[in-house]
């Protein structure tokens, strides 16, 4: 009887785990995106504070280290840790700079969570729609790739209108590195050149 109980318990735990992970991913997206939208729409903040808060939130949602290694593709394994660190800093500054330049257009949108699908344990896709605000006339379907990293859910990719952003950035970055004879520093410099106030030096 005890053995039967143990088997049932183990099986139910195993079955329940992915569901919990998927639900966690869904709640994570709902909570974090709402928090970002709140920051953007908060009239009490001046622009500098709003940008700082926004960037803090983004860095809590996305795992920049994992994304940076992903966009380096096969070159990540060939680079020295120092090169990867420099690239990651430049990549983070560049990505935040791109978001920063578009901030004024957003803030009054509403996110609606539809469902979540698990790719494998700790790796889920959350299906959402963003409506209102800047996309008032054309609600956008957005899919979030959530991976559990150190027991915490983190966004590693977003799909908008059929384009996965991290995959797209990987194509661009590896393209730049390939055209520069496999030199990662070339991509770091290029990212830095496109970022206002970049302090990364290779």
């Amino acid at each position, binding site marked *: 009887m005890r053995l039967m109980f143990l088997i049932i318990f183990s099986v139910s735990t195993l079955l329940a785990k992915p569901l919990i992970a998927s639900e966690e991913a869904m709640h994570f997206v709902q909570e974090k995106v709402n928090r970002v939208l709140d920051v953007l729409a908060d009239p009490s903040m001046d622009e500098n504070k709003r940008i700082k808060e926004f960037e803090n939130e983004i860095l809590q949602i996305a795992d920049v280290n994992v994304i940076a290694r992903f966009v380096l593709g096969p070159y990540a394994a060939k680079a020295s840790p120092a090169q990867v660190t420099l690239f990651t800093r430049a990549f983070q500054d560049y990505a935040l700079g*791109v978001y920063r330049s578009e901030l004024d257009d957003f803030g009054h949108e509403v996110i609606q969570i539809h469902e979540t699908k698990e790719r494998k344990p700790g790796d889920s896709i959350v299906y959402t729609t963003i409506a209102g605000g800047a996309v008032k006339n054309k609600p956008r379907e957005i899919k979030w790739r959530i991976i559990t990293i150190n027991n915490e859910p983190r966004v590693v*990719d977003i799909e908008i*209108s059929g*384009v996965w952003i991290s995959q797209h950035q990987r194509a*661009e970055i590896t393209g*730049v590195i390939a055209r520069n004879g496999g030199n990662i520093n070339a991509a770091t410099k*290029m990212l830095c050149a496109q970022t206002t106030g970049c302090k990364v030096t290779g």
Partner: protein
Amino acid sequence: MDRFGRSTLVLSIGFFVSSCAHLPWRHSEGDPLEPMNRAVFAFNTVADKAVLKPVAKTYQTITPRPVRKGVRNFLDNLQSPVVLANDILQGKWKRAAKTTARFAINSTVGLGGVVDVAKGAGIEKHYEDLGQTLATKGISAGPYLVLPLFGPSNMRDLTGLATELTLSPLSFTRFKGKQTFGRVRLALNTMDRRVETLQDMKLIRKNTLDEYVSIRSYYEQIRKDAITDGAIDMDDLPDFNLLE
């Protein structure tokens, strides 16, 4: 250009492309013709900045939005038989029924397709083409291509486009002013598509590290999305390496 001329042109491009595929150029994965593609891309960029973009902007300025919408609806309605054929070839019967209903409603009540009455009735527009159909039959994309003036494509999509042009119902009909009609249709289509992408292209050019690679990446992902009708193939998603 007549059907024979178009077929010859496409075959020539196909031959040139397959000959070039063996040349020892350095290229990115999936883009063995990158040097040639980059040259065509550079030509297209110059042509776009000098002619297409200014013309599209002028068209956008002088044509009220409802008129442009009517033109888009009309052009989309003309394309419906092609969409329907591909719905059927892909065995998507519900979508085929929708395309048929849309074509019937819009061609009659919708004043020859100018007004999208079907959309108001809840029958949404969708696109299918032969390139997508070939993909659903397991034909691989082949090398990435940049076509002069047409822009990004690949061997599969070029084959699909060439076949559609050759077998288009318009190719088999005879009427006065057919050539003029074909030219006006092509010009309007090109201009309207460019107006649609004015904002997107501005953003791409502003944020890109390499415009050529950026457009190639967008094209490949958007086509993949169109082939699966937006469904995600979980096995196709890349893994993220979590190891430090």
